[in-house]
């Protein structure tokens, strides 16, 4: 009997996992004992960190996209389908195209959703760099921004790419300086809790950098609404701030199908943080942003989780006891301007150290971005 593994989602987690399974389960795939299917609603793979560079003109949105067929091993069946329901008792999925897909083992890597509409005025007047359209619009806006108040607000927590808000504000500071506009632009960074970032060491690092670069830091700043006509943002704390250009880290949400399937009340899949197996269903795993684990929603997390799940699935197919576990390993680069960067790496319970920024680390980040397609192919 064929062991059916279905991976839903063609992002970093799903793509790396599919390629790892192609290698690990090579004998079983060749003999027909196992089959791996990758279900995705987008035939392309999108490398989202590219969008951070689009507003500054150093990357285009097309640089972020490659056809999945180029990246995924031939032994994996790629099927374009939008999964709309998960029946965990019946071990089957339903799709928007009216299909039913049976599985023995299911891996959800469906990512997080952006929900700017949850904050009045945000979709209308707020900019962001979390998708192609947003990044492109912000590039155009920034190109013509000569003077005024630029506010970067972290509206939603948790969000994808934890370093991105700090990166953006440090990059825009230097980008404006290079163009002789910085003196005419006031920069403000806001964060919802009492410090500049959820991770203490990044908060300390960012606070020092902001002070040195004349970037105003506003904490306990929970955005309630934007008034596009007045150009003001109001907070739940009762404060108001004027802006000329508002850049948001938009609110993120899980997925309704997760809640409907009983896999997690709030739309994120409740999983064991070490095995990544769903807590409320048998034979279901979750990786990447959709998995509710106590670490950042970063591409590196999806990558490392995919390796662990590939090991555990291989063991299951072979009737062995799975032993691979995820320890929370996370690696994040952090651009500190247009030509220097640093990075943090940590595991569950660790407090990362922010190293001295340098040009070689900036190049390491640029180099990694260019080589990312090797990661997606399961090589790097």
């Amino acid at each position, binding site marked *: 009997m064929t062991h059916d593994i279905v991976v839903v989602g063609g992002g970093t987690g799903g793509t790396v996992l599919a390629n790892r399974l192609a290698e690990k389960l090579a004998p079983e795939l060749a003999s027909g004992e196992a089959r791996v299917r990758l279900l995705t609603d987008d*035939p392309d793979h999108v490398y989202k960190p590219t969008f951070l560079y689009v507003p500054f003109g*150093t990357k285009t949105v097309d640089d972020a996209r490659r*056809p999945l*067929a*180029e990246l995924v091993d031939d032994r994996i069946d790629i099927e374009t389908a939008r999964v709309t329901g998960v029946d965990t008792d019946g071990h089957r999925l339903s799709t928007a195209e009216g299909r039913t897909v049976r599985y023995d083992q299911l891996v959800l890597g469906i990512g997080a959703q952006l929900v700017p509409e949850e904050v009045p005025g945000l979709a209308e007047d707020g900019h962001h760099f979390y998708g192609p359209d947003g990044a492109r619009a912000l590039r155009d806006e920034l190109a013509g921004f000569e003077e005024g108040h630029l506010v970067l607000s972290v509206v939603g927590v948790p969000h994808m790419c934890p370093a991105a808000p700090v990166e953006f504000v440090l990059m825009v500071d*230097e980008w404006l300086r290079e163009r002789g506009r910085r003196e005419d632009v006031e920069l403000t960074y806001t964060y919802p809790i009492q410090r500049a970032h959820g991770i203490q060491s990044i908060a300390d690092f960012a606070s020092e*950098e902001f002070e*040195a*670069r004349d970037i105003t830091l506003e904490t306990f700043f929970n955005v309630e609404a934007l008034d596009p006509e007045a150009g003001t943002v109001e907070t739940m704390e009762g404060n108001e701030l004027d802006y000329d250009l508002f850049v948001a880290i938009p609110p993120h949400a899980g997925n309704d199908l997760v809640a409907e399937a009983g896999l997690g009340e709030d739309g994120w899949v409740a999983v064991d943080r070490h095995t990544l197996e769903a807590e409320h269903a048998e034979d279901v795993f979750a990786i990447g942003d959709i998995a509710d684990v106590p670490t950042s929603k970063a591409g590196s997390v999806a990558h490392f989780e995919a390796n662990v799940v590939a090991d555990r699935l291989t063991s299951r197919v072979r009737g062995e006891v799975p032993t691979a576990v995820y320890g929370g390993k996370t690696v994040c680069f952090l651009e*500190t*301007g247009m*030509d*220097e960067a640093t990075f943090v790496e940590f595991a569950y319970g660790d407090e990362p150290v922010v190293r001295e*920024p340098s*040009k*070689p680390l*900036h*190049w390491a980040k*640029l*180099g*990694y*971005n*260019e*080589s*990312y*397609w*090797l990661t997606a*192919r399961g*090589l*790097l």
Partner: protein
Amino acid sequence: MSEQEPVDESEATASVAETIDEHPEALAESLETLVRLQETGTLDDLAAAADTVSLMTAAMDDEMVMTLASTGSRLGEVVDTAADEDVVRGLEQTLSAVGDASGEQPRQVGMLGLLGAMRDPEVKAGMGYLIQVAKALGRRRAAAAEDGQ
């Protein structure tokens, strides 16, 4: 990022003393490592390597880094495809066949010679393989065209 400001000497001495006071063991271990590297001559090599890194940092720019990394990445993808077990076997056989053929002086073959050669079982097997390659190539090119690549 920021320009380095001049440091008062007495302030600098006090700062060094404070660092020694705070991290005596780490500093002692670091110094031991430094002495070992110096005595073995490795320190000079590391200094030379650091100079090379400095030169590279001074000479390169973002564009060069991205171009190099992108080229390396594309080569990596070609190598990934080439490293597939079936591809390796096929390429090795093909390369060996090129080697075998190149060791002999080929005779000139016209239309009749070609037809005659087609009766040779080895040529028949080789042609079968070439047709199989052509078929697979056509299939992949059609799929790529369908995906708009």
